[in-house]
């Protein structure tokens, strides 16, 4: 089984979009997870709900909202275009943003669960040893929640690979720019005689997702072994 050049392009683009989307959401995702797990503030329930909204909204709706907010005819998109000559909608950037928004709740959820399982008394102990809040986070909370962060990253990465609805509305289906594996499969199915191409892409997706889950599982295992016991593991 070999992929033709267009299919290779779609696969590499998918991987790139997924990687960029994870990179985009990693810091805000971990920060949101920490804020939800470890602090109490006004409007927390609203933030929590807003983060999870992409999980329950139809992806097409998310794509449309992104288009309405960042498209060139929107206020912000128009300003970006006029000031910097930058367009977002219907570019690779749009595909990454769409994937990031859709994967964000998965990352936050898994990280937050893992952080909630970190014993707060260890954080107290760290404080009595002179660790500032930032150092407590960096050296205690995050390392102990790392299996959950890894799981979240992999889930979000896999979600990005599979993203379709929001991508096609916000980024379109432009070969070489926004045609990811998912949209390529869709295109192949729309093309007479495209079944073979669709199958090849389907197999590739299964393999990539399988590999991602395998890697996450072994990383999470290694992290738990380092802690000596199966604790603070997070959702894996």
């Amino acid at each position, binding site marked *: 089984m070999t992929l033709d050049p267009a299919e290779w392009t779609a696969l590499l683009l998918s991987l790139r979009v997924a990687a960029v989307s994870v990179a985009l959401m990693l810091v805000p995702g971990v920060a949101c997870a920490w804020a939800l797990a470890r602090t109490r503030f006004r409007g927390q329930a609203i933030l929590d709900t807003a983060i999870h909204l992409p999980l329950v909204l139809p992806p097409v709706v998310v794509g449309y909202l992104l288009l309405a907010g960042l498209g060139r005819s929107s206020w912000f998109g128009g300003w970006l275009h006029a000031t910097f000559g930058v367009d977002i909608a219907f570019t690779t950037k749009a595909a990454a943003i769409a994937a990031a928004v859709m994967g964000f709740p998965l990352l936050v959820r898994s990280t937050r669960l893992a952080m909630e399982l970190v*014993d707060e*008394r*260890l954080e*107290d*102990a*760290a*404080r*009595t*040893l*002179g*660790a*500032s*809040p930032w*150092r*407590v986070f960096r*050296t*205690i909370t995050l*390392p*102990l929640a790392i299996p959950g962060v890894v799981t979240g990253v992999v889930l979000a990465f896999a979600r990005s690979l599979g993203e379709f609805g929001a991508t096609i509305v916000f980024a379109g289906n432009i070969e070489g720019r926004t045609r990811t594996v998912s949209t390529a499969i869709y295109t192949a199915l729309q093309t007479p005689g495209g079944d073979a191409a669709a199958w090849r892409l389907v197999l590739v997706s299964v393999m990539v997702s399988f590999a991602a889950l395998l890697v996450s599982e072994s990383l999470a295992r290694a992290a738990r072994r*380092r*802690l*000596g*016991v199966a*604790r*603070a593991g997070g959702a894996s």
Partner: protein
Amino acid sequence: MIRVDLRVERPGFVLDVAFASDARALGVFGGSGAGKSTLLAGIAGLVRTARARVEIDGTTLADSARSLDVPAHRRRLGVVFQDGRLFPHLSVRGNLRYGAPEAGDSSLQEVVELLELSALVDRRPHELSGGERQRVALGRALLTRPRALLLDEPLSSLDRRLKRQILPYLRRVREATTVPIVFVSHDLAEMQALVDEMLIIDAGTTSEPKPISSLLLDERAFERLRDDGLANVLSAVVVAHEGPDATVLRLGGVQGPDVRAARVDASAGTEVRLRVAPSEVALALQPLQGISIRNQLAGTVRRLEAHARATLVEIDVGVPIVAELSHGSVRDLGIGVGQAIVCLVKSQALRVAEPS
């Protein structure tokens, strides 16, 4: 000098305490739910307080009247928790260094030697026994050069054998450093083995700290602690061993009289604490012949405290010792303050103060 004035409000529980103590090691004694851990957390700055004033050796760490509240990580208080709370993802060395990243190798070495940790430094917390974990936690706290050590039931997760192993390390810390210690426990025997002054915490309020040996004369403390084994606590220095079952010790260091005690496993010159229950001390008007009791200590009656259920008599034999007598015995012997008297203490009743 440690000065604490705290109020912590929680649903269904209020801690409201104020005390000051100059003791080298201050004990906080109380049952579960009395507020012991909350008190330590309040001193350490780990809980929100309704009122707080914490002062240690002249440094004010919190004063709500002046809106001063030094955050926990800047208070430099070494806390050792009941469960050790070692960081599971760091080695023992990583744990020890956590609070003192810039500490030189020499100070690490000092603590490692003091607590005999050298065989453990490259291990991980889950590979340690409970007692080893507590030693590492103690070392980790010590390395931060704390203003004070707050020990929150550091022995209570250990069995008796381990307690007896750890206690000498705590004593060593007490002797080798000048850091004031606050030791929280529900075990009076541990207290008697370690602290100089003790206060009792009950339902969120505390009594005044008192020298541990004077608690016997305080009727409330006596009634409260009688069943926990409140006893005379006498510091003594090992003089010599007499056979496999007896040891001669000098009470109060240099000036006190010599006594014979049940065998003490320590070499000559070692300072130990002996305990003897006041009910094990008998009084006679003159030395007795033909009796098995080997410690006959001549002294003077200093004080009489008639409690409801017994009279406590304090006798100065070079150091103060308290005897518990029935009211009838006191009357029949005609014991009064200033009287010369002989304290009779069986050597087997004099034992090293150790956790029970």
